[in-house]
């Protein structure tokens, strides 16, 4: 177990429990919102559509079947729609639908329980599917832009803006304007933290993991973290979310009007502009273009039917050889910086970087909090076309295995702070304490013959009190 020299034991121990980057999808995010926010969100047809789209297949089926039923449908009837063999899926989707308050329980005369779609959701989903309702605020007609921007321009613009954020994180030389706001979000998200000595932001374990995600997941994670802070800025969460969802259903390469947008939304728009989710020529231009980053932001990466975020702007550029050499055909400083997280760079040419994966370089990355799977995932994701000819293993298996072995090597020992209880007078005493620790989940090791047990350190006070009470009583 290697560690970068932090002196206190507790810091060492906390490193054992990996605090990995948590990626929520739309469902996880909405589930944790309070009921009244959900209710407000469902007032907007766009959100209902986005939520509906992301439901599991079976749930979508249920929703459509009861969309036009004006009374509760008995739960038994809903369950009977699927075969018995899939009852697990039924239970799961029922839970999902309830969690998102898409449907709610209602009692039916006769004492049966039934499901009924939540009225707001039902009304607005009908509007999305059948048309009608108010036009979206941002779709109001515009006269044609005399300096219209095409898709290629928007792509390169959004790419540049987004890479600006990533560049800032890796601290490469191309550091140009990133606002204090964006830095605050990075800090809030735990992707960067203030250095203890000079207070400048430095990248964290989660930050490294963030860098190796695909672009879509990065944007979504970042926006979620941003939304967390939205209310502190005095913006209305519901309003921002609604706008974001509308944006995600907009058309790439079309311009939209900012007319009728509230002051708060205009602020939000400026933030999105900074991260490259929308393009505006001038702050007061009165129109904006959504970019590829914003389109389909709400659809999960697993949903392959959605157009892939940057399939044509991004080509694989990494070749890995069995001798651990890495050739990266790129001129982007960001990509070079990413590669250098886990390889030792040897040569740099105008369009090519040559490096080698060594035990030291990989360990460096592991110490930084990147996992072996993330390294391999990144190499796979950006593998050069030439590597993809063998579609089963685009990477040499030896290299993949070795990277995994290097990771395992660091985990041969695990440490847990604990308290050892030994030399119990009787088996009964031992059993009582073991029983108590076990039911409270504090027991980390026990041996019956030796009458020895190890208890989690943080639970020591609790167990001690129990033991005192017990020994007094007996």
């Amino acid at each position: 177990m290697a560690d970068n020299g932090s002196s206190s034991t507790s810091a060492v121990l906390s490193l054992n429990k990996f605090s990995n980057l948590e990626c929520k999808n739309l469902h996880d995010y909405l589930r944790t919102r309070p009921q009244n926010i959900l209710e407000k969100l469902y007032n907007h047809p766009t959100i209902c559509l986005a939520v509906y789209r992301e439901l599991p297949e079976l749930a979508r089926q249920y929703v459509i079947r009861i969309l036009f039923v004006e009374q509760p449908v008995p739960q038994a009837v809903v369950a009977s729609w699927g075969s018995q063999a899939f009852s697990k899926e039924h239970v799961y989707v029922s839970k999902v639908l309830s969690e998102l308050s898409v449907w709610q329980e209602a009692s039916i005369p006769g004492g049966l329980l039934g499901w009924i779609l939540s009225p707001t959701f039902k009304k607005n989903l009908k509007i999305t599917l059948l048309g009608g309702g108010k036009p979206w605020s941002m779709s109001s007609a515009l006269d044609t832009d005399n300096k219209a921007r095409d898709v290629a321009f928007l792509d390169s613009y959004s790419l540049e803006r987004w890479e600006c954020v990533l560049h800032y994180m890796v601290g490469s030389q191309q550091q140009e304007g990133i606002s204090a706001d964006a830095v605050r979000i990075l800090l809030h998200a735990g992707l960067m933290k203030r250095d203890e000595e000079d207070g400048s932001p430095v990248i964290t374990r989660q930050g490294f993991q963030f860098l190796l995600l695909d672009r879509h997941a990065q944007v979504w994670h970042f926006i979620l973290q941003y939304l967390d802070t939205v209310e502190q800025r005095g913006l209305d969460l519901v309003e921002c979310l609604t706008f974001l969802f509308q944006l995600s259903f907009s058309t790439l390469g079309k311009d939209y009007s900012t007319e009728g947008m509230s002051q708060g939304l205009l602020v939000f728009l400026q933030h999105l502009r900074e991260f490259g989710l929308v393009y505006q020529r001038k702050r007061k231009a009165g129109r904006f273009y959504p970019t590829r980053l914003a389109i389909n932001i709400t659809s999960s990466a697993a949903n392959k039917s959605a157009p892939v975020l940057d399939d044509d702007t991004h080509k694989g550029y990494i070749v890995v050889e069995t001798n651990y050499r890495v050739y990266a055909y790129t001129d982007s400083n960001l990509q070079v910086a990413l590669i250098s997280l886990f390889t030792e760079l040897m040569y740099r040419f105008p369009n090519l970087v040559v490096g080698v994966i060594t035990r030291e370089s990989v360990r460096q990355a592991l110490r930084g909090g990147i996992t072996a799977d993330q390294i391999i995932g990144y190499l796979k994701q950006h593998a050069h076309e030439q590597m993809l000819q063998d579609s089963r293993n685009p990477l040499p298996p030896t290299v993949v295995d070795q990277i995994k072995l290097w990771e395992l090597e660091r985990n041969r020992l695990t440490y847990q702070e604990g308290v050892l209880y030994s030399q119990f007078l009787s088996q009964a005493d031992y059993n009582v304490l073991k029983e108590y620790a076990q039911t409270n989940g504090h027991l980390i090791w026990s041996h019956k013959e030796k009458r020895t047990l190890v208890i989690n350190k943080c639970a020591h006070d609790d167990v001690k009190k129990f033991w005192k009470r017990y020994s007094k009583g007996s």
Partner: protein
Amino acid sequence: MVNVMKGVLVTCDGAMKQFLLHLDDTLKLGRKFIIQDLDDNHLFISADILDVLQAKIDDLMDQISFPLAEKGQ
């Protein structure tokens, strides 16, 4: 009466356990640090030795690894 001691529970494979026992026996870290030998895969050691121990294990790992890639021309 019951005996209570604070420390760190180490979970490891058999080979690593033998290495730790060896370090303890030969006082390689300057003193004894194993409080109790629990079973084949578990040891209970004193908490303040942890940093030194980790450095020592890193050393061992460095010694038994062989550079795989040629960095030469």
